[in-house]
């Protein structure tokens, strides 16, 4: 018996160690963000010993963080709403309607998932310029309005809806449009929620594209804003970390509120947010 309990303690120690490795960067970030300016490094604790919340106020006022927040939320809402609508329509067509070339079109859609965005960023940049879209909301929203993965997830969901439901809807005189929005779509709520959460994360974390096409102060989204802020406050680490906390806190809060959706979403589909 003694040997087993030793193994258990060892296991638990490893679990704790890794939890520490995962959490230490956040602790160092928060601790630094609360330090007085002149004691940057010292003391090197991972738990705050001073609590200068003014750092947050100073950082918040030093760069238009509120603007960054609002911009990011507008983009996120726009992208999430359009992904829900367009993916539902497409998924309904693929899952429930019958037509020639359906499987081919579905594969063609899925094919877009294997295009790495970095490799088409130059022509995308060219398109944005030709449309005269630099520093607009369109350039951040429109290219992201449709993604094959959402269509795929929803289609899988729609296919599993019992045929009886659809037949009953038809008997009650529902046309396709009504069947989609009144019967099929409500049944897919959990998938829609998972999809929306991952899209939100994606938009909140997005960097390269907005950096290239929307880097005017007024149009910056949060991560681009943070990078610009770091360019100016490079040496002021206390303010820098306060800004970084502000750019990190929202997705983490959402993750803790909606853990179940995230975790089951990943476990079911093996995707990364």
């Amino acid at each position, binding site marked *: 018996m003694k040997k087993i309990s030793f193994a258990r303690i060892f296991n638990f120690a490893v679990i704790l160690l890794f939890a520490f490795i995962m959490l230490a960067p956040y602790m160092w970030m928060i601790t630094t963000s609360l330090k007085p300016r002149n004691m940057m490094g010292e003391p090197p604790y991972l738990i705050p010993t001073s609590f200068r919340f003014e750092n947050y106020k100073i950082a918040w006022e030093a760069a238009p963080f509120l603007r960054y927040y609002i911009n990011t939320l507008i983009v996120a809402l726009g992208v999430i709403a359009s992904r829900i609508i367009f993916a539902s329509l497409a998924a309904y067509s693929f899952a429930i309607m019958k037509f020639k070339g359906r499987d081919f079109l579905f594969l063609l859609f899925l094919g877009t998932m294997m295009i790495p965005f970095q490799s088409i960023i130059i022509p995308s940049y060219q*398109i944005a310029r030709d449309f005269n879209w630099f520093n607009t909301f369109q350039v951040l929203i429109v290219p992201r309005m449709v993604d094959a993965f959402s269509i795929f997830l929803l289609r899988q969901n729609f296919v599993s809806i019992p045929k009886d439901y659809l037949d009953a809807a038809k008997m009650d005189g529902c046309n396709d449009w009504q069947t989609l929005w009144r019967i099929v779509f409500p049944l897919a709520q959990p998938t829609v929620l998972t999809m929306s959460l991952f899209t939100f994360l994606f938009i909140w974390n997005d960097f390269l594209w907005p950096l290239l096409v929307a880097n005017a102060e007024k149009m910056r989204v949060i991560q681009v804003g943070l990078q610009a802020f770091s360019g100016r406050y490079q040496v002021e680490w206390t303010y820098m970390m306060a800004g970084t906390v502000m750019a990190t806190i929202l997705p983490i809060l959402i993750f803790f509120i909606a853990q179940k959706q995230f975790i089951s979403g990943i476990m079911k589909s093996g995707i990364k947010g």
Partner: protein
Amino acid sequence: MSRFYRSIKPFLYLLPSLIILGIFAYYPTLSVFRLSLYKWEFLSPKMEFVGFDQFVRLFGDDRFWNSLWVTTKYTLVVTAVSLLLGLVLAVLLNQKKSVPGRSFWRSVYFLPSVTPTVAIAMVWMLIFNPGFGIVNIALRKLGIEGLNWLADTKWALFCVMLLGIWRRMGFNFLNYLAALQNVSEALYESADIDGANGLEKFIYITLPLVKPTTIMLMILGVIDSFMVIDQILILTGGGPGGATEVIGQFMYTSAFRLSKLGYGSAISVVMFLIIMLFTLFQWRFVGFGTAEE
């Protein structure tokens, strides 16, 4: 009219998606191949057709081979280490009886995966800062003077890899955990009866059973690491002296810093083809993107 409407209705439902994907996915994909054949600089209207010249130049460019080599190192290390650690953690946390608060640890391990890359790269810059970073402060306590890690040719890539591993581990862990939960307890019990120890059980039961997951995570990890750019852009910009210049960074620098958009497109085409190869592997061996299939 009604019959006509009925026959085009499925396409009407697909139309918005087709338009968006057409303009922002299919067209740019074709376009990047075309652009790679043109010498095109500074977004100027003048584009000179040069055929495959830029590919010839690219394959003779030491910077290109360096970036491929750096990307390969980064990809191998990050993928292998994050897979191994993810599996170890999943095995440890899968022992239902012995671990209190499992769902809490699960969330903690997954936290890095939902943290913005740019933001955490800022923290990494601070951690490895020569003056104020916790690494050097700790070393100083031990009487060692630390380096300027991110500006050091030998260490910069290592620091960037650490960030990659830290961010990827939780995702692998979660997928392994999902796979392990489908493994029947009875297998381990009968191994116990046969007198197998923990390591033997791991090698002879666990590893073979999670092999499909390993393959899937390996390919997804390779694709993901191969395209790494955000954290490099923030942490080192590819420096010092190209030590962390992955292929994505090389493309970005060529196209948007040096304004050689045609040359950048040629690099993009190479990236595209490499990634496509990996993806075809994935579709062939795993089915696409999903653990279930």
